[in-house]
């Protein structure tokens, strides 16, 4: 059966600007939506969603959503829930970091090699979640 637009998983990172973990959340989202699962996932601007943009609100309400947060405040998850989004799972960069302590990302503006590697590890985990949500059809 051909997959329809409605069956996409929407991935929303916090994109936090103060620390490397926010950059890693953003990079992991791009790795997932542009490379690993480009046909079955998409993303939306978190600020636009939180601003009440109707198109963005419809997108997160009509599709399953995965959030990726860089810090414990978990802005992406909280805002998707507040928006009435179809919340289906969340990831935290700090959890991926704890499982990969040999990687020590430092730079924020442009991710260093360790930051890129951690983003890839996280994106792989998110891809597994996408497959699970889509019944292994990715």
């Amino acid at each position, binding site marked *: 059966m051909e997959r329809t637009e409605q069956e996409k998983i929407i991935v929303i990172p916090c994109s936090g600007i103060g620390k490397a973990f926010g950059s890693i959340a953003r990079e992991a989202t791009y790795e997932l939506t542009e490379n690993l699962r480009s046909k079955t996932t998409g993303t939306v601007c978190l600020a636009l969603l*939180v601003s009440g*943009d109707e198109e963005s609100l419809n997108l997160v309400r009509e599709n399953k959503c995965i959030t990726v947060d860089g810090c414990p405040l978990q802005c992406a998850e909280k805002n998707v829930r507040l928006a009435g989004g179809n919340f289906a799972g969340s990831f935290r960069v700090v959890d991926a970091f704890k499982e990969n302590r040999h990687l020590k990302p430092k730079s924020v503006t442009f991710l260093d090699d360790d930051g890129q590697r951690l983003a890839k590890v996280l994106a792989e985990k998110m891809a597994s979640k996408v497959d699970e949500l889509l019944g292994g059809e990715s």
Partner: protein
Amino acid sequence: MQLSEKKVGIISCRGEGCVEGTISRVATRLVLEKLPEKTVTICLPLFLAGGKEERAFARDYPTITVDGCEKLCAKIGTERYSGKPASSIVVTELARNWHCSKLNSRRKLDADSVAVAEKVAERIAEEVDEVLDRWR
């Protein structure tokens, strides 16, 4: 929220959906690195979702909003919750004025896009100095 020094809050949209959002994010970061004694940043999603400290800062201190596109999430959100920003920058407008038509890759900025981000950062830095001068 009170800081001992005069600082300008930079509120960037950093939209994930377009290259201009990435440029707004990178430009803001470059300013924070260049002018740490004059600037702080405010996390926009946290601010919009009701972050008390973020909103209090934006009420008590001057802000500069940096939006990637004409939807102006940072500017409109700041006006709605904390008052008019001291200055507002829109990347798409600047890029158009600078005749930069080939911005691409929201994920990893190419050399042209990095150059635009650096020019946007310079513009933000100029605005920071103007805002601080007016404040004195």
